[in-house]
């Protein structure tokens, strides 16, 4: 079908229509605009909380911490301590988590040529959650801080290997089988988590429940550094494959014939996404909707080219989760909503709006 459309449009383009392709200028403009927007979003969200701290004051405290170090800035007063010890780390963590989720979502959607794909659909998050729940049930998580994230990685890798074993036939991964296998694995993992929850004593069950809902808390520096390094490393790996990913969205045969080593690229992308998912789930639990909705929204605004879409989604996903978490913290203050509930509540109408706006735009 697409091939058919090529002929007349190519002829028309010769007559002077500027081709809509991704240029270096557009890439730079979009990415820097999003980076600035992200900084502004974090600064604005900093003021909200149990105690209101003005934007100007917040900016001053952050600026001071950047210049003189955190300890010197915290000596200024209690609001500085709240800001630098609680709010800022949580916001930054939220930003990283949102960025990771969106990057994973955009990768899986392109890889599976399926707009419904995200780590939750494929059961990769479910695997991570099973690993984490096991660590909680067995008491392993109490033995040391590293065991929870390690178990989550192990779980997501396990679900990925399972997925591969089920879906791969004859060296090839069929897109439909993979998706179906993901749904089944996810169902199995959900059942496992529920089974474990029913065996737990109430305090453990509550922890697993909050895990399942997805919640952010102020992290220590180590957790923050771990997530940051995962996002950087994983993001670079995914970004390197963005061009190949573009070709994969058209079809595996086309990509293969254009010189993409399809199996290797798929393996790299799936393992990277599993690691990112494991890292995210270990610090924040199961936060849904970000990985599915953010790539969609960004794609409507910046087009489908993954070279731009990938970094744009990292920023947009980060901003989305920061805003969602701020609302979750303040809407029912002093009580807190799980951010996973917020992302769905905030994300769904926003997504619907974009969808309808686009439909109207296309009709006119």
């Amino acid at each position, binding site marked *: 079908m697409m091939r058919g459309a090529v002929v007349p449009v190519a002829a028309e383009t010769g007559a002077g229509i500027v081709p809509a392709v991704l240029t270096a200028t557009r890439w730079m403009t979009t990415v820097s605009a999003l980076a600035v927007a992200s900084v502004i979003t974090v600064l604005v969200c900093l003021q909200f909380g149990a105690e209101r701290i003005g934007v100007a004051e917040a900016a001053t405290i952050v600026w001071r911490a950047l210049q003189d170090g955190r300890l010197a800035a915290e000596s200024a007063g209690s609001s500085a301590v709240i800001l630098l010890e609680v709010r800022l780390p949580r916001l930054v963590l939220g930003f990283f988590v949102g960025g990771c989720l969106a990057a994973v979502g955009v990768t899986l959607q392109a890889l599976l040529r399926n707009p419904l794909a995200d780590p939750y659909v494929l059961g990769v998050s479910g695997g991570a959650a099973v690993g984490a729940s096991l660590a909680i049930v067995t008491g392993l998580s109490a033995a040391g801080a590293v065991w929870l994230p390690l178990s989550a990685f192990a779980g997501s890798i396990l679900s990925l290997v399972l997925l591969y074993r089920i879906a791969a036939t*004859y060296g090839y991964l069929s897109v439909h089988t993979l998706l179906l296998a993901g749904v089944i694995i996810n169902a199995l993992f959900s059942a496992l988590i529920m089974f474990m929850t029913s065996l737990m004593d109430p305090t453990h069950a509550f922890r697993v429940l909050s895990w399942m809902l997805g919640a952010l808390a102020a992290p220590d520096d180590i957790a923050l550094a771990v997530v940051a390094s995962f996002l950087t490393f994983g993001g670079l790996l995914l970004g390197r494959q963005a061009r190949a990913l573009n070709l994969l969205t058209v079809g595996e045969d086309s990509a293969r*014939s254009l010189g993409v080593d399809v199996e290797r690229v798929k393996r790299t992308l799936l393992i990277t996404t599993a690691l990112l998912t494991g890292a995210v789930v270990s610090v924040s639990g199961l936060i849904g909707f970000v990985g599915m909705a953010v790539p969609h929204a960004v794609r409507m605004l910046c*087009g489908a080219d993954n070279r731009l879409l990938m970094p744009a989604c990292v920023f947009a996903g980060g901003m989305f989760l920061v805003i969602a978490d701020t609302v979750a913290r303040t809407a029912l203050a002093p009580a807190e909503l799980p951010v996973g509930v917020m992302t769905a509540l905030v994300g769904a109408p926003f997504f619907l709006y974009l969808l309808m706006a686009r439909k109207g735009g296309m009709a006119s």
Partner: protein
Amino acid sequence: MTAEKQSGKTDAVAYRVEGVAFSYGSRRGPAGADADGWALRGLTCDVHEGEILGIIGPNGSGKSTLLKLLGSIMPPQQGTIRLQGRPLNSFARQELARIVAYVPQQSSVVFPFTLAEFVLMGRFPHRQSGGALGWFGWETAEDVRVAGQSMEVLDLRHQVDICAILRRLNREQGLTVVLVSHDLNLASQSCDRLLLLQEGALIRLGVPSAVLQPEVIESVYRCPVLIDRHPASGVPRVTLP
């Protein structure tokens, strides 16, 4: 033009296919001695440099499978395929992609890529951004092009357009074209030679007038046909009685 090409270029071989068998069943072939599992069974043929070769045959005769093997989308279980004298599996992916372009039957366009972005994806094996951009994904491959059978879904004008472009590329740049078609008349008019397949085996290979014989087509397609001459070009024309 056909005669000219026949006399001028028949010596050079783009593809040499020798004893190629392929099964979708497993890596080693169909289970046990089940002969029905083969999609292609011991096929031997040549594709000449600079020709347009049309693969024809009934549904399930192995047309698409042969095309995929030529495009190196999948490796055959038995036999060898040589491209310009070298075994197909000795090419690196990128290297092959600069020589051969494969256009599948269907491309999924799930995401809103613009047409120009889509076209520029064809530059992937060349690793140069911008520059002289080929408007077609097609102009990626310098030598051989393996076309899919998407033409059936196109209306008359687009079929004519595609065929005209293929012929132009073939004539002006010496592009070798292998295409799969269900439309025998389109194949007859646009191809230098036809390759007729039945149940994974080669039945006939030659110029359209040699392949499109009433008794051959009737036995392969299991349906009575009338074959006369096209009033303008003189190539065989197949119609139902």
